[in-house]
């Protein structure tokens, strides 16, 4: 067992495995995905200070002032975390709520009133098999995850809701996190060639839509080719691929 004191206080990133202790200590500590504040003080020599342990394998990163810590790695199975945008498909309708498959271990529930402008009388009518872009509002280890398609404060949709048409690409979790990064090259590059719509879920699903079938297929193939889990092509490789696709 590695204790916190064994890990040298290095500023460059290090690699952690699930169960490893992370030397994250700050007055205003913010933990990102893959890190857990453990109340279990068995391993800690100091009984008052709770320890932070990693729950995923990956590279450990922290912000410059050591207040924010997170783990970056690649995996294929999604573990829901609050406030993350996800794409799910409706699998069942139970009374006032929908059961939505978001690719996690459990199906999430989405209340039919959790949409913009939804009232008791006027609710969206989703069919089984419809796609929704939603935000995880509750992710607890002992409960099924819950979704919402609006901001609870402003009651505005902010882009969430049912997705019509288009196609869903399944990619690795690293790829969809990269796509959300405004500095990532892929979506601007594709957008420069033809108009497109995209919704990126953090559960490894990306919804894309373009006017022509050929263009949508080009987007699908580019995302799959750029995925570090698949081809892992760079800007140059993607440009070469796009030239062969005749779009």
């Amino acid at each position: 067992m590695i204790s916190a004191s064994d890990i040298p206080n290095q500023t460059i990133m290090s690699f952690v495995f699930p169960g490893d202790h992370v030397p994250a200590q700050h007055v205003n500590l913010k933990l990102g995905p893959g890190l857990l504040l453990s109340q279990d003080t068995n391993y800690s020599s100091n009984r008052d200070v709770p320890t932070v342990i990693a729950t995923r394998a990956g590279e450990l990163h922290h912000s410059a002032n050591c207040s924010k810590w997170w783990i970056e790695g690649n995996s294929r199975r999604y573990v829901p975390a609050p406030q993350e945008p996800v794409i799910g498909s409706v699998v069942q309708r139970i009374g006032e709520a929908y059961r939505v498959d978001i690719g996690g271990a459990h199906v999430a529930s989405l209340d039919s009133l959790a949409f913009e402008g939804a009232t008791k009388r006027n609710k969206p009518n989703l069919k089984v098999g419809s796609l929704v872009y939603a935000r995880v509002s509750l992710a607890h280890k002992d409960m099924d995850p819950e979704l919402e398609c609006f901001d609870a404060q402003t009651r505005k949709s902010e882009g969430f809701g049912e997705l019509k048409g288009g196609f869903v690409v399944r990619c690795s979790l690293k790829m969809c996190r990269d796509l959300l990064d405004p500095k990532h090259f892929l979506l601007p590059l594709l957008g420069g060639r033809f108009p497109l719509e995209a919704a990126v879920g953090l559960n490894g699903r990306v919804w894309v839509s373009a006017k022509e079938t050929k263009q949508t297929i080009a987007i699908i193939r580019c995302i799959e080719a750029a995925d570090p889990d698949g081809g892992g092509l760079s800007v140059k490789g993607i440009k070469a691929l796009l030239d062969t696709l005749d779009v």
Partner: protein
Amino acid sequence: MRPPSPSIPEKEFVYTALKESLRLDGRLPLEMRTPVLTFGPDLGWVECAMGKTRVLAQIEAKMVKPQPERPFEGSLTIHSEISPMASSDYEPGRASDEEVTITRMLDKVLRRSDALDKESLCILAGQRVWHIRLTLHFLADAGNLLDCACLAGMVALKHFRRPDVEVIGEEVTVHSPSERAPVPLAIHHTPFCFTFAFFPDATTTPVLDPSQLEQRLSAGLVSIALNAQKEICVFQKLGGVPLGADDILRLVEVAVARAKETHELVEARLREDWLGRKVEVR
């Protein structure tokens, strides 16, 4: 839990794209993914990859007492189990319908097609025969596991070499590979399996080597197992799509061409591997 069926937008997109003869991975309707064969350190250890679908085949040979009703024949057993490692759609323990289909097809293509000469596995009539055990590990499922598994199994049988044995009277001597060069199994012919998917709309052309999504959205599958000599071993049709005789003949013609290509590829890869392999004989 059954895997959720593809969502409505995905289904509609695949159908419209196929109507325009476009496939999501950029292939032509009757184009298959080129199989990539990787050989391991041991003889009879083959990994076959078709796109992201990957199957690992492994062969072990063991000396056993033959069955009393067939004293001159060795045996081949195929062990295949699809674990959740391949895809989260599969559950451990309970065999899904797809798994049952794959297991039965593998049995038909590899064992009952008489690809392997069982009598050549006899060492001492009624007392000692070789028992060949083929284990298939399904590593990843991205559609068309069956074709990939058949190819992996068949190549593994061709790649494997059993230790040489010498029989003097009643005494059996097994020579280790360092003493005498191991001998390949006697293979009558090499059948390959090709799967076509049909879609509910009759005007859509059938596709060869369906991806996982295409397989799930298909209305019917036709699997043809045949060798490069145009001998059909197994013809299987699943799902209730009506097909005319000329449709089937067209599929068979495509399969014949693909079988010839695959045969050449397999032979070339096996030759390449054998030349690069050092089997010491003192």
